[in-house]
């Protein structure tokens, strides 16, 4: 694992962890490589949530179990953390918060008293921000600007008091002799701090998305919120649907009429959309669907993480029809793949799914800005003429797609098996031609395959395959392990799978697959579609992501 320094904040829902995380990430991000992840309970107030911020000299994007500095925000904040505290861990807390726990190195920190001295308990978080800024030696100006921005809506006097609280906190820790064990970096270009959700949202905007109809469901809702906030600036019609069934049917209606729509949901909501997915399939109406995974079955663990819905996505909907599934593992990819999702949906007239999970969506990464491609904005919509046939077989397998009101033709779209014109038919031959037309798109789709990324030595003998949110974990592992010849194949297009993946596997003596589920769903697809023999599936399905330490330990056992 990489040399890094890990700060964990532990508190209740409602104690402002999110704000603290944002402020620290934004300020520390200018002087370090940073990565933050969180785990939250399914409740609005109370309980116990934690935020972990890793600082490093090189990019990191994996969850670390052991904690360097731990900040406890209340008297039960320690309860679930004993196993993560080492002898070297410094625990910052009020005396009373530590009761009943052993381990670590205690550093009393009475934020309440300090806030009281400043005259207002609401300054606790700004004090703490300052305290941490002091430890990390963060640029005071930057931090001040962040605070002023964050509280811009408040009265100047309150902003001033917050700045004072910050300085107070910073001063308090500067007096301590507890610097982090990590060097600062200077980034050649300023990096954008963003979480997985924002990356998907940016990708949607970059893909020309101008319609979203969705029903709230953790952890997918944040994308709906992101697009709501950019709706006016980017001409996006945002609709909170009455249920998930409406959401996807509306999205299909929007594409039919010429918009580019996305729907965001989680496994349970997506289960309700499957009939409509099948409608997308037979009518050849494009759709982009963001599935934010969380542990199932049913309600499961609503705010935790899992990669348990790959099969669901691959096999969703009755009948047989093509689809594309992307599973981004880092922000640039989330932007690019989501953008591409709109392009491919339009080009091949198929549903395209973006499969993420709670861990990825809520994690904060750093991303260097990059120029966006214009090509994915290309519209494949045609102007119709009088003789227009929506399902013209001569254009097998992709008939040009018209939209109503654009040209002289009529656009007739039917969920029954249909003729070239789009009218219901029960002709057996036409049925077969239409079914073939739809399924034959898969070979074209594979020509556009989004290649997997190999990380590590080209001359590997051990290949670790992972998808989606395990990217940062496995990348860190292969880049830091002392085992040589271990490489990581990051599959970002998980369906349909391309033969090129097989070649990577064939070159290895041992193939491992890493997944956050109990049954090894990608491993099964690799076997089924590419005859890849997976030697070992490294699986975790308790609702937590792998930690880098845990992963190292498992691999020690698993590697030949």
């Amino acid at each position, binding site marked *: 694992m990489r040399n890094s320094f890990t700060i964990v904040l532990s508190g209740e829902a409602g104690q402002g962890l999110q704000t603290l995380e944002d402020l620290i990430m934004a300020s520390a991000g200018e002087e370090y490589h940073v990565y933050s992840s969180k785990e939250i309970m399914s409740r609005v107030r109370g309980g116990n949530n934690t935020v972990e911020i890793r600082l490093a000299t090189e990019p990191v994007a994996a969850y670390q179990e052991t904690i360097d500095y731990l900040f406890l925000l209340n008297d039960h904040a320690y309860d679930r953390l004993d196993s993560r505290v080492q002898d070297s861990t410094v625990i910052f807390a009020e005396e009373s918060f530590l009761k009943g726990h052993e381990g670590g190195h205690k550093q009393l920190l009475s934020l309440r008293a300090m806030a009281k001295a400043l005259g207002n308990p609401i300054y606790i978080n700004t004090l703490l921000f300052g305290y941490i800024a002091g430890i990390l030696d963060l640029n005071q100006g930057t931090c001040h600007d962040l605070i002023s921005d964050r509280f811009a809506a408040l009265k100047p006097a309150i902003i001033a008091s917050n700045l004072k609280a910050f300085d107070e906190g910073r001063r308090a820790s500067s007096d301590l002799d507890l610097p982090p064990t990590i060097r600062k970096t200077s980034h050649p270009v300023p990096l954008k701090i963003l979480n997985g959700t924002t990356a998907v949202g940016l990708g949607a905007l970059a893909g020309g998305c101008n319609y979203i109809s969705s029903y709230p469901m953790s952890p997918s809702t944040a994308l709906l919120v992101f697009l709501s906030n950019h709706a006016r600036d980017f001409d996006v019609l945002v609709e909170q649907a009455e249920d998930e069934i409406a959401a996807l*049917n509306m999205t299909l209606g929007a594409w039919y009429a010429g918009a580019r729509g996305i729907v965001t949901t989680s496994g349970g909501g997506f289960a309700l959309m499957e009939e409509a997915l099948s409608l997308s399939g037979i009518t050849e109406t494009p759709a982009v669907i963001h599935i934010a995974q969380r542990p199932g079955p049913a309600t499961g663990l609503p705010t935790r993480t899992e990669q348990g819905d790959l099969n669901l996505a691959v096999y969703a909907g009755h009948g047989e029809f093509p689809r594309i599934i992307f599973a981004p593992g880092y922000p640039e990819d989330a932007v690019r793949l989501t953008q591409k999702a709109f392009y491919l949906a339009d080009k091949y007239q198929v549903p395209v799914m973006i499969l993420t999970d709670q861990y990825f969506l809520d994690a904060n990464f750093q991303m260097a800005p990059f120029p966006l491609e214009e090509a994915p904005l290309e519209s494949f919509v045609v102007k119709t003429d009088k003789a227009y046939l929506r399902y013209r077989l001569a254009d097998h397998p992709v008939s040009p797609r018209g939209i109503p009101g654009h040209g002289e033709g009529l656009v007739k779209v039917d*969920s029954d098996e249909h003729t070239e014109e789009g*009218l219901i038919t029960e002709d057996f031959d036409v049925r077969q031609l239409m079914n073939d037309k739809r399924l034959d798109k898969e070979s074209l789709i594979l020509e556009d395959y989004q290649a997997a990324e190999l990380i590590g030595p080209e001359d590997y003998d051990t290949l670790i395959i992972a998808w989606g949110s395990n990217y940062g974990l496995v990348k860190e592992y292969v880049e830091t392990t002392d085992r040589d010849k271990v490489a990581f194949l990051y599959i970002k297009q998980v369906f349909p799978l391309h033969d090129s993946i097989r070649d990577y596997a064939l070159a290895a003596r041992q193939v491992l697959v890493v997944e956050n589920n109990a049954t090894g769903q990608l491993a099964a697809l690799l076997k089924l579609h590419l005859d890849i023999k997976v030697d070992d599936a490294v699986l975790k399905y308790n609702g937590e992501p792998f930690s880098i330490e845990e992963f190292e330990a498992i691999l020690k056992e698993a590697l030949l």
Partner: protein
Amino acid sequence: MKPFEMHPNTDIAWCPGCGDFSIRKALIQALTELDLDPTRVVMTSGIGQAAKMPQYVNTNFFNGLHGRGLPLAVAVKSVNPSLTVIAEGGDGDMYGEGGNHFIHNIRRNPDIAHFVHNNMIYGLTQGQGSPTSPVGQKTTVQVEGVINEPFNPLAVAISLGATFVARGFSGDIPALTVLMKAAITHKGYALLDIFQPCVSFNKVNTFKWYQENTYILQENHDSGDRMKALALAFEKDPYPLGILYQVENRPTYEEKAPVYQADKTPLIHRQRRLTAVEALMTP
């Protein structure tokens, strides 16, 4: 040939004598009298005998899933408000499977016309009770007779503030044509529930029954009075026909949508600039 008429060879899959034929006649007549351009009209529908209507009207259509005609309609209208949008289907389709979309689209008030063929039966699936089947009606599934109270679409629509609520009868094509035109031209969500005999499966609510159990609302009925309209919606045996309730000039869903506040251009005609997205990507 009227622009919305189909080729005369078209094989229409309804039973001879079905009220759906008359509804089709009225619809084509209404569209023609309104002088609409078929390329600028979109019909959406679900699945059922009624929901086959778009197959037999020469215009754009999206014939979707059972119960899901309304979500398609509201979406089409909202991304391109310049189109005329009609959602059509049966009582099972629109009030049963699609009941949730029914109640929530009333709340949206999209500028669409909603035509529901109310034959008080599931026709296409061969005669099970529908949400509007009368209590006591025997069917292949309700072998001892329907036990649940019939759904009252008009009362629900009025309760939820629908801006146009009417009932027609397939047996009176001229009156139905007038109602259809009124619904299509009404600004906002317009519900037109259409009594329609199913000659194959509904032996209770026959053409004759509908004739004997309906009456035409008087000219002087005050369709702006909500409580009166509700009282009418509760009337049965006979059931009133006509516009029970209508209020004008309520803002529509498309008008209220933030995306149309500063700019009325249909969404699908606007351009995305990547530079603005790139700006969001820089710290």
